[in-house]
């Protein structure tokens, strides 16, 4: 049994405060009316607990467009993440367990693409999509989000270790088709790796701002990030009638981060074991 170090714990506690205090501020701020935001101390509550009025306003302002944004975000990120994770699982298994001509070359090309920045692709993709009438549709967000070179890399490493060749052989001897083997035997063993890729693609799409900002101009299609940025730009315009929007931006921001934090906490067992496979081999 090792000795615990109080000094180290205190040092880390300071670090933890740095990471959590802004979020605490956000939670406190979302319980305040716009007036109290300006007049009271930011890091503590006021007597006037305004959270539920704020939440009510967030969901009713502009014909309830915020709820629409939340649903859009959920839809874009779940479909993108599910699709990307599935493509990566299929491809990673293919690269890991089959020897075919060009295997290492193709994999090398994909690996090199990890370095290609997604935002450098966004403007050309927008120009392409505007030629084929895909801009301002959900596809404009989902299709580019389906490619995850890093996800493929992670799944290949994971499949290499997690799938026993004898399992595949046994399936073949039983006369199962290759796809049958994948769906009935392999997929289950890949689960932690798939959850890892799923979660990280989910975050990438959920948090994406640049792509939807350029692809969409219909507020009904906005994800939460573009919507909140639009609200905040209205508050920046000046006080007066838009002053009330400030409380909405703050409360809307607070609400928007709850689902992802919850997903990470609930699924931590899976993504942590999935990541360690990728981390070791680096």
């Amino acid at each position, binding site marked *: 049994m090792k000795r615990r170090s109080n000094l180290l714990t205190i040092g880390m506690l300071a670090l933890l405060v740095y990471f959590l205090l802004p979020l605490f501020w956000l939670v406190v701020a979302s319980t305040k009316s716009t007036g109290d935001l300006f007049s009271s101390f930011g890091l503590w509550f006021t007597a006037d607990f305004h959270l539920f009025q704020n939440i009510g306003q967030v969901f009713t302002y502009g014909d309830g467009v915020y709820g629409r944004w939340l649903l859009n975000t959920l839809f874009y990120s779940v479909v993108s993440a599910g699709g990307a994770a599935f493509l990566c699982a299929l491809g990673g298994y293919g690269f890991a367990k089959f020897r075919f001509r060009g295997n290492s070359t193709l994999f090398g090309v994909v690996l090199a693409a990890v370095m290609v920045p997604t935002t450098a692709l966004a403007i050309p993709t927008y120009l392409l999509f505007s030629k084929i009438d895909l801009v301002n549709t959900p596809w404009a967000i989902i299709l580019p989000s389906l490619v995850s070179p890093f996800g493929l890399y992670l799944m290949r490493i994971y499949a290499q270790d997690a799938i026993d060749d004898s399992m595949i052989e046994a399936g073949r001897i039983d006369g199962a088709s290759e796809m049958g083997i994948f769906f009935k035997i392999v997929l289950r063993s890949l689960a932690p790796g798939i959850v890892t890729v799923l979660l990280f693609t989910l975050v990438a799409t959920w948090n994406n701002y640049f792509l939807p900002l350029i692809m969409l101009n219909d507020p009904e299609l906005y994800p939460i990030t573009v919507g909140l940025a639009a609200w905040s730009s209205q508050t920046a315009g000046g006080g007066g009638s838009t002053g009330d929007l400030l409380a909405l931006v703050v409360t809307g*921001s607070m609400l928007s*981060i709850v689902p992802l934090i919850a997903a990470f906490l609930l699924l931590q067992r899976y993504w942590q074991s999935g990541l360690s496979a990728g981390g070791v081999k680096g």
Partner: protein
Amino acid sequence: MKKGYLFILPFMIVFVAMLVVPLVYAAYLSLFREQLIGGTVFAGLDNYTRALTDDRLIGGVLRVVRFFLLQVPIMLLISLVAALAIDSGLLRFAKVFRLGIFVPYAVPAVVATLMWGYLYGPDFGPFAQLAGSLGLPAPGFLTDGGMLGSMANIVTWEFVGYNMIILYAALRGVPGELYEAAAVDGAGSWRIAWSIKIPALRPALLLCLIFSVIGSFQLFAEPQLLQRLAPSVIDSAYTPNLYAYTLAFTGQEVNYAAAVSFLLGLVIVIASSLVLLATRRRPA
């Protein structure tokens, strides 16, 4: 095994359609120029010569290089220290620390920037409030001199947890026998961290570094949103990506924007490759 193609085909189709084709298309577009008279004409490498002598673009690239040199070492150092501390077994409530530090990763850059923007703000930001109650002037987070540091703080806040988790996962993969052998030899926690753990983290650190290069050069959401709070500090070419966006959507200079995007991608690939080359382990 030809069947392997079946498995990689779906990924490769999407890969080509969404990554290779846009890249090639950007390269193609960048060779043309729009004119008021005569429409779009072939321009050869004119857009590139223009980009390489464009002070606004070069200013933006140098700014993100400065940002990178300022922010990434701090971020990776905090991530490394946190990962080592959590892995050391010397910490009480290690799990609370691990999850607590990771949480900001789940916060979108937009929300993080809006939030820090309010915190920095001179109106109701707690820093300004504290300074005010002490009779001091509000700290200049959003001024010309403070902005790059303020932005570095936001990005650090967002990504320490992510890097820490990658490093921590790599540490868990170090065989326990190594520690036991070192402990038998009388090595303490510090010595083990320095002589065994940090060398073992080399590949994972490299991965974090590459991702940081890519992230820094792509900086967009943070400057774009902070621009509203400090329009006189952040202009439309503050980062190369913001510049490309402005060119394409405000200036309607699509072809030049494509050239800038393509160059930006090239700069990032070169910078990442340089990092890889510089840190490559030389054969003993």
